[in-house]
C-alpha cells in the first residue's frame, strides 16, 4: 500500500515539475486544423475545467496543477472502481 502511495505522490511531483515546462504549441491535430483554416463550431459541452484550468484561480501554474491533480485522482478512483468490478468471478473469496 505504501509503495502505491509513493507512486501516486511521484505522479503529483511529476506534474508539479513538468507543467511549467510543457509546450503550449498546438498539438498535431490542432496544427492541421489551423493550417487549413478550419473553423470549429461551438461545441454543446465545454467541460467543467476546460483546457485544464480552474477559472477561479488566476495563477496559470496553480490553476493547471490543481486541475491536473484533480484529474489524476479522478482517474485513479475510476481505475479502482473498474478494477474492483473486473475482479474474476472464479477467484476464491478473500
Amino acid at each position, binding site marked *: 500500500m505504501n509503495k*502505491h502511495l509513493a*507512486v*501516486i505522490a511521484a*505522479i503529483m511531483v*511529476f*506534474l508539479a515539475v*513538468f*507543467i511549467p*515546462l*510543457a*509546450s*503550449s*504549441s*498546438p*498539438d*498535431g*491535430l490542432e*496544427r*492541421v*486544423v489551423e*493550417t*487549413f483554416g*478550419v473553423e*470549429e*463550431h*461551438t*461545441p*454543446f*459541452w*465545454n*467541460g*467543467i*475545467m*476546460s*483546457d*485544464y484550468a480552474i477559472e477561479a484561480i488566476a495563477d496559470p501554474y496553480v490553476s*493547471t496543477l490543481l*486541475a*491536473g491533480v*484533480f*484529474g*489524476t*485522482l*479522478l*482517474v*485513479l*478512483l*475510476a*481505475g*479502482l472502481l*473498474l*478494477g*474492483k468490478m*473486473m*475482479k*474474476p*468471478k*472464479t*477467484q476464491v473469496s478473500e
Partner: protein
Amino acid sequence: MHIPDGLIATNEPTSLTIAIGMWIVTIAFLGWSWKKAKTTYSRSITALLAISSAFVFAAQMINFPIAFGTSGHLVGGTFLAVLLGPHAAMLSMTIVLLMQGFFFADGGILAFGMNAFNMAVIGGLSFFLIKLLTRGSTESKRLIPSVFAASWLSVMVGALLAALEISPAFAGGVAVTMPSMLFYHAIIGLGEGAITAVLISSIQRMQPAIMGGLTLLKEKTKL
C-alpha cells in the same frame, strides 16, 4: 490527437454518421475487452490498473515540442497494453479519455467514439503487434525495440483514422488531412516510442514483478 466536437458538423450527414458509427464500433470493442478482462486475469490487477491509468492521464498533460511550432504528448496506449494486457489497457485508456472529455473538454463527447477507438482500442491492439514481433519473448533486447515500433505505429494508425474521421470538416477532404496528420504524427510517434520504451525498460529492470501484461505475451492468448 483528441478530436473536439467542434470538428463534427451535426447538420452534415457524413460527419454525423462517422461519429455515431465510431461510437457503435467502440462500444463493441469495449464490450469484448470487458468480457475478456473479467476472465483473463487470475489475480486482481486493480492497483496496477488504477495507478497506470492515473499516470497516463498526468503524462498526457505534458506536451513536448516537436518541430514547426507544433507539440505532441504521450498517448500511452501501448504502455498500458504492455503493463496490463490488451483488454484491460483498452478499458484503462477509455476511462482516461472519458475524464478528459467530460471534465476538461479535451476531446469531444460526440467525438468520444472516434477518440476512444483511435487511442484506446488501437493502443490495446498494439499488444498483438508486440506479441508478433517478440514471438512471445520478454527478453528486453527483443521486447524494447518491439515496444518502440508498436508505440510509433499505434500513433500513426490513430492519426490515420483521425484524418479520415475529421476529413468532412475540411474543404480539401482526406487529400489534405491524411498527409498532414501523418506527417506530424510520424514525428510525435517517435516521442511516443522513445518515452514508452524508456518507461517499459525501467519498470522491467526495477520492478519486473509488476509487468502483468508480459505473462499474456508469453501465453497463447486467443483473440
